[in-house]
């Protein structure tokens, strides 16, 4: 049991670190389009690690099923939201700051 506990701690801790990394990322990156990628971290792996860690904590119950459902919904809605946002920004003429040496 202590084994499962430790694994779930590792997952939650990784999720916490990734969340903070994403939070720092949206302040470190210079323009809107690159910030999208920083938010991508918090939407995908950070959320995933948290959910897996919590599932290990609750064990095989209805609660873990609900947690997995949350994960699935986030997994489908987050990229859609990101794409909609990027598309709108592009339509409105917001320029991306690109690398000059390409």
């Amino acid at each position, binding site marked *: 049991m202590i084994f499962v506990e430790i694994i*779930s*701690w590792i997952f*939650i*801790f990784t*999720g*916490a*670190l990734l*969340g*903070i990394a*994403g*939070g*720092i990322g*949206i*302040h470190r990156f210079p323009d*809107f389009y690159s*910030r*999208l990628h920083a*938010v991508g971290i*918090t*939407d995908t792996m*950070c*959320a995933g690690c*948290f*959910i897996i860690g*919590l599932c290990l*904590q*609750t064990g095989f*119950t*209805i*609660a873990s099923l*609900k*947690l997995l*459902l*949350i994960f699935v*919904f*986030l997994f*489908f*809605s*987050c990229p*859609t*939201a*990101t794409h*909609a*946002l990027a*598309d*709108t*920004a592009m*339509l*409105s*003429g*917001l320029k991306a700051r690109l690398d000059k040496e390409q």
Partner: protein
Amino acid sequence: MIFTVATFAILVTISLGLARALMGPTVYDRILAVNMVGTKTVLLIAVFAVLSGRTNMIDIALTYALINLVGVVAVLKFVEQGNFYTDGEDD
């Protein structure tokens, strides 16, 4: 113990997102930050529910994850209509 760390980390992330939402500079940065805060709040509620043993509370996080989807569809609809937001930068 680990839950304290997790809650603390999520709150830090939310505050970073909130700072971006307030600073801008463009409208899209703000929407992006709001999205992130939304996801983090779902996680915060889930973590708190498991932490306090009141697993019924996970339903709220689930509701919000679903509502998020509805919100995204609403935003998409406006994008499609084209009268959603057409200016470039604000401030």
